[in-house]
Structure formats: C-alpha cells, structure tokens
C-alpha cells in the first residue's frame, strides 16, 4: 500500500465531490492543502489529455516532486484523481475501475443529485477497502 495516496472525485464542474486520504502514512493537516493544490493543478493537464485518448484511464498525467497524479475520466467527464507515490499501474487501474462501479451505483440513486457531494458512508468504506486492496 502506498504511503501517500489522496483520492478525489471531481465533478465535471471541477468541484470535488468526494475526498479521501487513503494512504497509510499518518494524515497531516498541512499536507491536506498541498494535495489539493497538486490535484487541482493537475486538472489543467487532464483537461488537455482527456480528449486525446479513448481510454478512460489516463495513467499518470502529472507529477509533483515524487508524487504522481493518476487520473481516470468517466464518460460523464467526472474525474477520479489519485495522488500517489507508488508505481503499481495495474493496481491503480483496477482500483479506478472498481471505484467507477461504486460511483455508478451512487449515480443510479434517484436521490443523488449529480454533481453534488457524495456523503454515503457506505461508499466511503468501500473506497477505502479498495484502496487497501489495490494500492
């Protein structure tokens, strides 16, 4: 498991709708904003990259020092962004695909307003379990 991993789902309006620190390193307050900065800045790259490929998984799109940003773009242009320092590309891909499944389940919920924050604790637990499994 990666020591640092920050997973964020960004809606198509660039609003983060789900955030989770899934790394094994103890969470630090001052890192939270740094991760957000990196992921936020990486959106610029994703914006360009998303239209150049048919694949949903864009692999690592951006890096900041030793932190890598891997991105998965859904058909609705919701972006799953993972900031990590590990290199297991396959694990990340599986992780993204499984999260996509979960996300679709959330999306199918008639009470969920697309683009609003995902507050389901079930989703949260599942995502964290997946992170433990694949990252």
């Amino acid at each position: 498991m990666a020591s640092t991993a920050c997973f964020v789902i960004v809606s198509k309006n660039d609003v983060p709708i789900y955030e989770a620190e899934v790394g094994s390193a103890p969470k630090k307050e001052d890192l939270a904003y740094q991760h957000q900065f990196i992921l936020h800045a990486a959106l610029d790259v994703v914006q360009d990259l998303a239209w150049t490929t048919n694949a949903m998984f864009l692999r690592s799109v951006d890096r900041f020092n030793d932190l890598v940003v891997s991105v998965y773009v859904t058909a609705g242009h919701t972006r799953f962004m993972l900031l990590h320092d590990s290199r297991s590309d396959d694990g990340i891909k599986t992780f993204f695909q499984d999260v996509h499944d979960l996300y679709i389940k959330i999306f199918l919920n008639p009470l969920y307003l697309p683009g609003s924050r995902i507050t389901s604790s079930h989703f949260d637990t599942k995502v964290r379990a997946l992170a433990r499994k694949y990252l």
Partner: protein
Amino acid sequence: MDPLRSYLGRLLLEEITPVVMVLTTPLAEAACRKSGLSFVDMLSPFSLFKKIDVPVRTASEVPYRLQMFKIRMVYASDVRKEDYEVADERIKPVVSEANEKALLDLLSDPPQLEDVLGKPEAELCPLWIKKFNRELMRTLSFSEHETFDHPVACLLVVSSMDKEPISKFVDLFNTNQLPSLLNEGIMDPQILKHYLVLHDQQDGPQDIAVNVLAEMRSTLGLNDCKLLCINSSTEADGSNPDNSWLPYKALGLENREGTCFLSTDDLNEIKDFMQDFASNHIIPYMEQKIRVLNQQVATTRKGFRNQIKNLWWRKRDDVPEAPNGPMQYTFTSIESQIRVLGDFAFMLRDYELALSNYRLLATDYKLDKAWKRFAGVQEMSGLCYFMLDQSRKDAEYCMENAFSTYLRIGSSGQRNATRCGLWWAEMLKTRGQYREASSVYFRVSNEEPSLHSAILLEQAASCYLLSSPPMLRKYGFHLILAGNSYYMSDQKQHAVRAYRNALFVYKQNPWSYINDHVHFNVGRWYGVLGILDVAIKHLLEVIACSHQSLITQNMFLSDFFHYVQSMGKKFDVYKLQLPVFNMSSLRVIHEDHRTYASDADVDVSEGTWQELEVELIPSSSVVRTNWLDTQPKPSLRKYKDSCVCVAGEAVKVNVELRNPLQIPVDVSGISLICQLSTNLDALSSDVSGLTLDDGEDKVNTEPSVSILETDEDNFIVSKLDIILGGGEIKIVQLDVTPKVEGILKLVGISWTLSNSVVGYQYFEFGAQKKNKKGKRGRRRSFNNSLVVIKGLPKLTGSIDCMPTKAFAGDLQLLKLNLRNHSECAVKGIKMKISNPRFVIPGDSPDIDLDFPHCLKKHMQSEIDLVPHKSTKENFKGLLFAFPQVLPSLDISFAISKSSSRLQEYIVRMDDFEADSCKEAESGSYRSDTALYPGSNGDVFDIARPPLADFHFQERYRQGKLAKVPCSLLDFVLISKAAGNSSKPSPDLQLLSHHTCHCSALSQSPIWWLMEGPRTITHDFSKSYCEVSIQLVIHNSAAYKSSVRVVTSDAMPEKSQTVHPHDSTSVQGGWHDVSLENDIKAISSAKGTRHEKQSSKSISPYVWCSLSSAQIELQPDSCSRVPLKVCIFAPGTYNFSNYELQWKVLPSKEAQVDENGSSSGGPGHPFYVTVLQSV
C-alpha cells in the same frame, strides 16, 4: 522567428562576448575618480557596438560582416570565480529593490483573470526578474571548464603622471597579480596586449603624454599603444555633463558624485578608442586565432586517421572518473584548444564551426568521463543549434543532456544546471513551448535556494499562463509555491504579491483547503506588512472553516482577532460568516397571539374560536384583512398585502444561527436592522426601489449599518447576547418595537462577534418566497414591510391556579387577571365562555371574598332573589382547559312534603361515598328555607351569587325553565370534603350538586296546615276556652281550585293510627313519626291528670265557628280559613278532626275529568295543649 532577435539571442550576444582584462595603475584610476567613475565604468558604455560593421572571414575563408558586437571590460582582480555565497549576496539587492515597488501594488486590488490574460509577456515577468536571471548566470563567470569568459585581450592602462611608464606596463603584467586562470595554466597567458596612456588634462598639457606614447611605441610596438585624454572640461558644472552623458545613461553609466570633468570631446575620444580597439585589434586577433586553432585541430583530430588514433589512444588510457581534475586539461591540451576554438567561433557568430567543434569535443569528454566539461559543451552546442535555428530536437536533446549531466555531478554543477535551465527555458519560450519551459523552470527551482527558486517558480507560473490554452490552475499553484518560497526567504512583499496574483484562480473555489490556505496566508502576510484592512478582508474568508481541525480553527480565529484588535476599531462586515444565520429559518412571529399558553393550547382548532367569535365580532359587510384596520387609508393600499403591526408592540422574528466551528464563539448584540419611515410618500418610492434591487447588486443598495441605527426615536430593537458552543445551533428571537405609525421595514440582522467585528446581513427576498406564518395559518409571500398602525389596547388574561383536576360538582374560585399592556385605555370588554354552565363570572366585589367561607349564611342573610342575569352574558374569549372531572358523590334522594310546615320538604338521601359529611338544603326555586337534619354549624347561603348562579345555570341546563310548575323542586346538595386526617388542606373543597325539577312524592296539589298557638293557658273556672286557629291552604296546582273545609266533631280514632304515610313503612331512614306517643310520654312525665281523659274522651272540643267553608284558590296562592275551637278542660288536643275536599278547576272545560282533579284528605294532626291557669 529569427533567433538573433529573440530574447535569448540578444541575451547570448550580450553575455557570451569577448572579455577584456583591464589592468590599471593607481594614478590612472585616480584620474578617472575625479569624474566619479572607475576606468572600467568609464569605458563600458562604449563597449557595446550597435553597428560595428567589421568584415570577418571564417576559417574556411567565407567572408561575412559583424554588425552588433560587445566586449566585456573586467578588472583583472575580478577575473575569478566567485563564491556562491558572495554571489548570492550580490543578487539579493536586485530582489529587495523590487520589494518597494511591489509594496505599492499590494494596496491596489488583486488582478482579475481578464487583466492577466490580456497582459503581454513582458509585464507578466517584471523587468527585475530578467535582471535577476542575468545576475544569476553571471555568478558562474570565469569558470574553468568554459572559455568564453576567459580574457581575450588585456588592456594595460598607465597614467601619464606615472614615472617610468614603460616599466609600469611591464609591472602591471606581473605574473603574481594575474588571475589564477592564467597562472594555473588553464588558459593561454599569451593573449593580446594593448597599452593605453591615460592623460588627465587638468594635470597639464598633453605634451608629456605624447612623449610617453612615442616612447611606448618604440618599445612596445607601434600599433598596440594608444593615448587617451580625459577631464578636458575645466568647469565641473552639472549642465554640461547632463547633455553629453544623456545617450549613455541608459547603458548604466551614471555620474554618482555629481561632478564630471568629461567633456564631449573626451567622450568621443573614448568612443573612438573603443571602436578601434574592438575592430582593429580584438576581432582580427580572434579571427586569427580561430584560423590557427582550426588548422591545429584539423591536423590532429580531423580526418579518418586521426579519429582512429584518437579512439585507440583514449581507450588505452583508461582515465579514472575525475569530473574536474585540476590540471587535467591545460591550455596546451587539444581539448582545451578545441573548446577555445568553439567559443571564439561562437563569439564571432560562426555557429557552424562552433557546433562542429563542440560536437567533436563532446565525444572526447564523454570518453574521458569529464562530465562537467561534457555538460558545458553540450550546453553550448544546444545554444548553437538554437542560434542556427536548426533541429529543435537536437537543441532540446543537448540542453536536456547538459542539464541532467550537471545535476548528476552534484553540488558543483548545480548552478551550472540552473544557468543551463534558464537558457533552455528561454529557448523553449522563444519557440512558444511554454509548458515545457515552465516545467524546466520548475526543475531548476528545485536546485536553488528558496529565494532563487521563488523567482524561478514565478517564471514557471507565468509560462503556464502564456501557454495556450492558459493553464490557470497550474499558474495559480506555481505562484503559491513561489509565494511560499518568498516567504521562507523573508521576502514578504513578494510573497503577498505572488499569492495575490493567484487569487483570481481560486476565487469561488470549492476546494476548501486550497481556499483556506491561500486566504489565510495572504491575510496573515498583509497583516505582517501592516496593511490590516486587507488582511482582515482575507482572513474573513477563512474564519468559518468547519472542515479544518480544531487547532487550525483556533489559529485562524486568533490571528483574525489579533489583527482586528490591532486595527483598534470596530468595523462592519457584510455577510460575516460567523455565526451562520440560516435565513431560510426566518420566521416572523405575529403579535396576534390568542394565548401565551403552551403550544398544545395554541393549536386548538379554529372552529372553537370561530364559534365563540360569532356574536362578538361586529358583523360588517367589508371584508378586511385584519379587523384592526377599521379605516384603511388610501395611501396604505399598496401595502394591503403587508402585515400590520401596532405601535408599541414588538414584532418578533425567529432565526436560527449556527456555529460552524468547534470553538465556542461569543456573539453579542444580535439585533434586527430596521427602517421606519413615517412619511408614506417618500417611503413608497424608497421601498419600491429597494425591493426591485433585491436580487441585484447588494453593494449598491446596502446602507451602512451606522446609518440604520440612528432611528432610535422611531423604534426600539432588542439586543441579544449569547455564546454559541462548538457546532451549536440555536434559534433566537429578535424583536423590534415601533413607536410611531408608518412603514416598518425589516432589513436585516446585525451582530457583534467577540466584541470586535460587527457583522450584518440583509434578508433576501424574491429568490425564494419565504412564508410568514401567522397564527391564523394564512400564508403570505414574505414582504419585509410592515404597516405600523397606531397603538391599540392589548389585553392579556390569565387564570391563577387553574386546577387540572376537579370532582364533579367541585366548586372552585377562579380569578381571571386581565392586564392591559398598552398605553391605551380599554373599554367595553366583553367576555364569552364556551361553557357557561361551568364557569360563572362573579361580581367585582367578590374578588376579595374569602372562599369558601363567603358562601356561608350570614346572620342577616335574607331571602334574596337570584339576580336575574341574561343568558347572553358576554365573555372575552379566553382559553381555559376545563379540568378533568372526577365522579365525586353518588347520591339518591327522595323528597316529600313536610306535613308540619307549609312549603317545606323532607329529603331522604342516601349516598354511597361515606367520606364526606353532608348538609342538605332544600328549597323552592323562589325562596328558600332550610331544614337541617344533621345541622351542626355551617350553613350555606345558596341565594348568594356564586351558588345561585350555578343553580340558575343548572336549572337552565336541565331544561325546563319555560314552564314552572310549582310542584317541581330543585335540590342542591352542598358537601364539604372532610379534611382528611392526613393533611388538613387550607382550601377545603366544596362540592355542590344540583338536581332540579324534582317532584315530591305526594302529588296532591293542595297543601294545607294549621296555624295557631300551641300552648294556651286558660282559667277554666271562669269559662271554656276558645282557641282560634287558622287553616292555611296552598294551591300548588297550575289551575284554580275550589277547596271545601268540613269540620266534624266526631273522633276518627281508628283512622288516626293508620295515619302515617304508606311510604314510610317501606323506606328506611327518616320517617314521619307520630308525635302522639312522645306527647304521651311527656305528659306522663309531667304527671298530667288528664292523660287518660284526653285519649279516651270522645270529643273534648267542639268546632265552633263553622262546619264547612268553600273557598276558591288561585293557582299558586294561599288563603287562610279561620277556625275556632271550644275547649272545656285542660289537656292536649289534636285538632285533626276535619277534612278537606278540593276540586281543581281547569281553565279549559275539556280537561275536567283529570285524575286527581277532585279529591280530598283528612286533616293533619295539630296538637294544642291547654293548661289551667293558676
């Protein structure tokens, strides 16, 4: 784009130029000092030649002309490598100088997206940054692995005042004083030497100098000697120099001391000298050298044979890895010569030659593993590629290679890497590859100390902005990084500037941590710089950070309050985030309360009220929104939808407020912001204006709080202080009390946070319709204007000690307290009770009565008539819950007529609850006389108001009021709960039971009895005794009756024994006991002689007046029939020897044969005792 015209091209032309080492004598230097300049300073403006136009030929004899040319003049003592620390210190002023300019910018508004995108590149990167870049590159000057900084020529300067100038020249080029580069054999000491005699005109005529020159020419060579005369201007005035120096000022030549003896002629002479020096000496020398070196290289390295040899030789000599072994390559080594060749070619812009040599060299160095030199060569070949505008890929490859190689060799190559990176980035920028450029800048920044990296990051940021499409987020991020670095290197102004420029990227940003970080830091740094208002503005953005940890929240808040306090005054903040007012929870509470009782009572159905109100509300044809506004003014018509409030009464608003933090916050002075305008016309326009603008620009319509608070005369607002705990949600009630008529507008809420910040917020209407919920359940669209009408009386009523439980028939005294809250008098209060059977209003004097003792009969309590009250008593609607009624007494009773007295009854009563003692009263509805079977004290007066009223109500309820047959009786039982032994309750309970319209057991309509003296004393010795008695006959029937009284003298002995009522034998309890036996007993006790006689005598008395009388009795009336009896002996006599016969005469003939219409009855016993008088 022509690479020569690009920024990098010009940079290279200016930076990579031949260096001229200058050696001066102290006297020559002193001559220059007179004008406030050093010798180098004096010459350097003229070392840049815009149009030198020198013909040059390449090594392969291809002619071309050099146009722009520059030579660098450097003192010999400066030709050395500087320490990094010293160099960095030298750079610092460049940054801090820009500080002061930055400070001015900070006061203005931060740039917006449009501004930034519209800016040209030059403005994005301020000039000082370019200057900084150059300075950063110059710190690498005179390194040993590159030769373009190695002096090409040497200028020896001797003053004409020096003694033995020729020997001075020789001394100057003393090997001890020369730079280490020359001494250590890294470069060729055999360089071009040029000799100059400097003559100060003030020291005397030119002759000495000319002589010296002639001498020099003869010894040192004809062409290499020159004479330069300066300070020819005799007067040191300010105006002359100004004019002549003007064109050169831009080149950095500044007269610092104000005096200048250089005349225009001097300047022209200097210029000519420099021109000559460059074109006739330096350039030809370099050209020559190139040719020589090229020849040398060609013979040793070019050609197939040489290559093989070189390869083989290199292989054999397996050099250990020593990146910059001190003496590995001396100037005599072929590698150094190739490098010199390349650099010279580069400086003379023969880039192809340079490139081919660099490439040749690269392979050599690579084989030698001389990495630093390899990187340097790669760097240069990259630049050559760029200048040739060929093969971008190769250029980039070379730069990349150089950069990474520099990095690989560790700390010694770091700064070189930086320079290489800067060149590389500039190269990419020239080609429009901004994204790549920014990533290069970013990579460079990692290698530099924080101040340098900050500037590099800032350049990276600007590159992101310039790339297309602009990468704003990257721009922002890198500016933030730059700001952080600036802050770490203690350049706060720059830090704020960087952050501020990034602000627009993060405006309205939902990424909460980013937002907090940016605003907090900007705010804090502004605070440190002392620009407090801006600091507070930014800190305001972060104080409501619910997602942060407790520590962070604390830090944010304490910083915020720190700056607020250092600001030293309260200030107003529109839409302060702390605490959060939930505007959708806004409710206006109307002051049309029917009750202040519990909510359960408030929610009584409307039907209950309407029923009560039916007779109270005056019927009117006009339907009004509120019955209060009896006279609607025409000007108020437009406010007809507005709610009405009353002057002097509070309008209440409920609003929910929430503390988003985990820290308790102190909120004081929460109050409404209101406007009350008495002038209706002025207001109407104002109001319409404001309501229209609601959704639009808040800033314009937003009146400052201070203005609104001046209205103290017209209304009073409540102020509320609370402390909200962490995460707490509270609903507060605010009120405003208008004092005058007009239109009251509820504008917003204001509050004070921790006694230092006044927050205010306006109510927003329009977007979502808020409903004002009146108690009537009428929903209206929320309108913030209330019509204030003049003061109205306002009554409240309450009942003390309303019991929740009572027994059936429980009598309780209730006090209704009415209170008028307003200043107006109240008239004509009406009251209505939903259930008048159970609640009877008393009279005002009753209030002070001592209950229940007041009910007791007073000594003189006469027979009062029940005060006749109308059933339409009017009550004010008050809501009381009637108490729960418990069953109390269960009684059964029978009433019979008393035979002894007229209009008295005997009541037999059984009750099944033995715990109370009873006092029974019976009476007719009209008058009452009481009979007390177990009388032992307390007597109740049922004719007094409370009881009588209840009685009346009961009669009414039980429903037979209209027809009042006299024979029907009302039975009132008043019982008193026996004080339980356990607790003697002070307020003893009284229970009253009313049973109305009972009938007595005997149904006879005629009721009679004898009246007369009971005891007579008579002297029988004189005459017989004549007793006159009266027979009172009462007709209780509804009709007229005719009654006939028949007396008979015969004794009906037998019938007397049977006389007792039939019913008494059946019933238990009391019964009619014949007095006969008692009398006898008494008589016997007295020992009366006539005992036997009286009982045995046949007729001891004689009716003497009449034997029969016929009278007519009106319904419900009495008549008396006088009777007389003659008695002849003393004794006790029973005058029952008569009979009544009556006939009811119905008014209508048809009902004659009614049962009982005609009947009769024997006389009641009436005992009279006659005594013999003595």
